[in-house]
């Protein structure tokens, strides 16, 4: 039998027992001046057990929720990523802002090939890739052959580091394997208005058109500090104003990729 608590309304004396005392021992107030202190029932939300159980349940619920969402949406997301990659490849071929990406890709890009050490191409028979960085690292050098207006174009995927994170892109070359037909860049987290212009500024990407990538057997296409490009040189392109670090990243990326593809480019 739990004891109840009674509080004297006059002086605040607290009596413990089955019922209120006849008289308050401090101020002699009668029994009617006492009232029972009712403690709130319910869960004690500050107890250790409750806290631990709460945390555990919360973690499990959230984990299941996240797994469920991620699993149910995965196939759609993967399809979107594939679609986006194709869109980027088409952008390098100067085919931008198309709604039916998949259809145009299938009719334009003829084959996904791999470069062998001697520079010849063999058909790639794996699944369509969306991460050419890991492919590049594992030695699978992809070359897409495409046909635009009856002419053969080669698209080479590129990967590198910008100022804040990864940058990547695709460079399309004419049949001579030297003249740039088109180029596309994208990035993970470059500064909006500055480094991000490599993706946003079509003008910047168009400034590569007609440039040459190889001179005397070596990769020669360079991105230089904005305004410093020699207008008569077929190998130099102006960087993005105010984004020297990102432009340097683009330059390093182009150089790295072109150097790896030299056997193909020089063939």
């Amino acid at each position, binding site marked *: 039998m739990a004891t109840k608590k009674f509080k004297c309304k006059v002086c605040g004396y607290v009596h413990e027992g089955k019922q209120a005392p006849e008289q308050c021992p401090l101020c002699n107030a009668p029994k009617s001046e006492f009232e029972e202190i009712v403690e709130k029932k319910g869960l004690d939300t500050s107890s250790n057990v409750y806290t631990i159980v*709460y945390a555990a349940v919360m973690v499990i619920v959230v984990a299941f929720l996240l797994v469920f969402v991620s699993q149910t949406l995965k196939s759609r*997301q993967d399809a979107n990523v594939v679609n986006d990659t194709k869109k980027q490849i088409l952008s390098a071929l100067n085919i931008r802002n198309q709604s039916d990406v998949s259809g145009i890709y299938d009719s334009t890009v003829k084959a996904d090939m791999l470069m062998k050490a001697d520079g010849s191409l063999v058909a790639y028979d794996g699944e369509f890739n969306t991460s050419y960085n890991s492919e590049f690292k594992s030695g699978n050098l992809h070359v897409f052959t495409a046909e635009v207006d009856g002419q053969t174009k080669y698209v080479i995927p590129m990967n590198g580091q910008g100022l804040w994170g990864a940058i990547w892109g695709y460079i399309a070359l004419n049949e001579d394997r030297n003249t740039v037909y088109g180029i596309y860049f994208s990035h993970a987290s470059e500064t909006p*208005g500055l480094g991000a212009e490599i993706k946003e500024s079509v003008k910047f990407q168009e400034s590569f058109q007609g440039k040459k990538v190889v001179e005397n057997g070596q990769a020669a296409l360079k991105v230089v500090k904005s305004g410093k490009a020699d207008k008569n040189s077929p190998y130099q392109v102006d960087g993005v104003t105010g984004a020297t670090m990102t432009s340097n990243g683009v330059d390093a990326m182009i150089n790295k990729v072109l150097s790896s593809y030299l056997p193909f480019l020089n063939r």
Partner: protein
Amino acid sequence: MANKKNEALKQPLWVNNPVVVQILGICSALAVTSQMKPAIVMGLSVTVIVAMSNVIISLLRNTIPNRIRIIVQLVVVAALVTIVSEILKAFAYDVSVQLSVYIGLIITNCILMGRLEAFAMQNGPWESLLDGIGNGLGYAAILIVVAFVRELFGSGKLLGYQVIPQWCYDHGYLNNGFMIMAPMALILVGCVIWIHRSKNKDLQEK
């Protein structure tokens, strides 16, 4: 009661603005305001996330153990942001690419934790929803004002469209490169606070 709800929505828009009065969310206000478009996108996403997490925390508020309440709030916000970003990735891929940079900034945005701790833990879901929307919009408003000035004077554009005509450049006008840099955003936020204080004399510190 109706009055209190109205207040929850209207106060944060100006009198109790999260950025210029509560000084919350300054970091992201500096990071995403070099152009109008990211500022608008960020403002709207924060509005949606604050409103939703405010409602969830408000519904749970009586069950949350006091000692781990910050962790609970953080988990709710992080889970919510992750789920929203997954859904966007599946159904609105272009939007999710736009947002990808800001997802992390949303989770760590002080406005979220500030509003959850200061408002949603004490108030019912409906008021919390209004408070979330109000604070999100108040935040968005400041972002857009700052981004407007920065994009106009920094790149001569608004929402990506050239607004300062070419002949100005031909006559020697130059874009102010400093406007694009983060310190300028801080100075602009300072100017907004200055104007705000001069209109609200009771907030001035003696």
